[in-house]
């Protein structure tokens, strides 16, 4: 009877952890579609719907994070890895907040992005989303096969470096254009908004590497 209760709680926790990382992967896909939509048609109905969708994912992830915290502490589950799991989920949750705040900034500040910059923004967004995708996959693997995490984290780092290169080139392109300084600074801020997501993904991946090494010892 005790073991049945223990396995029911364990099953619930496993499902909550999986759902949390589902929210992260799905939010990344929707974020990419939202930025593409903005580059195509500005703050359109489609863009607003995507923004709301990302906000809903972020709220759902917050709720799951709280449920996981509650389950870990009240049911005394995984006592030796509890801190690591919570650290991982809290820092991964910040990526969802960055997705949301980035899209809010697009909606509120409506930057005017010239068509010749569209390709750069699209490539940057793609690279950032790829880094988050790999991170989410690495996080899932961490719970089952920690020895495989390093290959996922290597890809996160690779995509983050690529994102840095693209953002550098994009900023150069922005500041070499004919636009006014205020507009250039505005556009640069949006490059930083998007690039910050890959930076956060890399930070989480670094944590994940340490947690995986600890679990293998």
């Amino acid at each position: 009877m005790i073991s049945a209760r223990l396995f029911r709680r364990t099953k619930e926790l496993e499902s909550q952890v999986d759902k949390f990382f589902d929210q992260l992967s799905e939010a990344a896909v929707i974020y990419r579609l939202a930025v593409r939509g903005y580059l195509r048609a500005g703050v359109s109905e489609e863009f607003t719907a995507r923004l709301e969708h990302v906000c809903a994912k972020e709220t759902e992830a917050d709720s799951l994070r709280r449920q996981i915290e509650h389950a870990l502490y009240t049911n005394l589950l995984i006592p030796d890895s509890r801190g690591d799991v919570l650290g991982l989920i809290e820092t991964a949750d910040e990526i969802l907040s960055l997705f949301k705040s980035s899209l809010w900034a697009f909606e509120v500040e409506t930057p005017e992005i010239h068509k010749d910059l569209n390709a750069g923004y699209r490539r940057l967004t793609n690279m950032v989303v790829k880094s988050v995708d790999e991170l989410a996959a690495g996080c899932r693997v961490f719970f089952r096969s920690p020895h495989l995490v390093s290959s996922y984290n290597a890809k996160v780092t690779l995509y983050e470096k690529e994102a840095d290169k693209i953002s550098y080139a994009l900023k150069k392109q922005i500041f070499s254009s004919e636009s006014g300084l205020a507009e250039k600074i505005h556009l640069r801020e949006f490059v930083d908004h998007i690039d910050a997501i890959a930076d956060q993904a890399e930070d989480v991946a670094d944590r994940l590497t340490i947690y995986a090494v600890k679990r293998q010892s």
Partner: protein
Amino acid sequence: MLFDPLVLLFLSSGLFLGWALGANDAANVFGTAVGTKMLSWRSAAIICSLFVVLGAVISGAGTTHTLGKLGAISALPGAFMTALSAALAVFSMTRAGLPVSTSQAIVGAIIGWNFFSNNPTDSVVLTKILSTWIICPILSGVIAIILIKAFKFCAKRLSVHMVFADAYKRIALILAGALGAYSLGANNIANVVGVFIPVQPIPPLTIGTFVFSSGQQLLLLGGLAIALGVFTYSKKVMMTVGDQLGNLSATAALIAVISHSVVLFIFASRGLEAWLSNMGLPTIPLVPVSSSQALVGAVVGISILQGLSAIRWMVLGKIVFGWIVTPILACFVCFMGLFFLQNVFGLTVL
């Protein structure tokens, strides 16, 4: 034959030793599980007490028989002093902060009785006991190394989710703890009541068609004394052991407990002895071994896999020192105590 109330007084030293054993050695079995919060102390104490009593009653006779061969104490006051001197040696060593083993203390005390009574110590039995004290931690370490390698091999291939792995570990800790408690009762009960068994201080008890011999009642009493020690005093020791082994992961802690339990079981199992004998293989002596040393052996085995620098040599040195001093101290205290009992109080000790 009527029950003499004075018998209880003479048995008190053995029961005190049993209480001390329960208070200290239960921590070897469940300390890591309780210390790492994988199991509540209450659950651990209930499981531990139950299985200690079962182990003592069902499988405790084998090691008791070996101790009887080392020195057949024939008078109750003599048995009282032997158990008391072992308890005093354990108590003083614990006060001095040195790791201690009741098994070594009782063997030292019996040799003290042999010296006093001019009975020759059976060198074959003594060599058998001494060799197991060396083999026990080594065997425990080897089992721990094999288990941890096997665990890592399986964990890589099975890819069990972390939260499920945790649940399995929790159940495994309970099962290993139950086996450990059973083995502790079976193996170490000899330390508690072994010296009283040849004296037969309690008359046989008949309930219906069942007749409980003096030895069986003593094993039950000893088991209950150990269980009392678990319930009244083991909590603090369990928490301390949990903290001391804090550097170990939950997996390593589990493997240390399993290795310790297996070794104690091997040195107490009459069934295994009979099976090896039937197969024409050399048998494993049924000897009370130190639960603490079995656990330390397992921890050292696990540490070796992480590199020799992970071993705390000072702590190991202390353990070896305690190992040598405990039987000598118990032997000396027993000799002196018997002298006083015989010459000052005029009691028959031989």
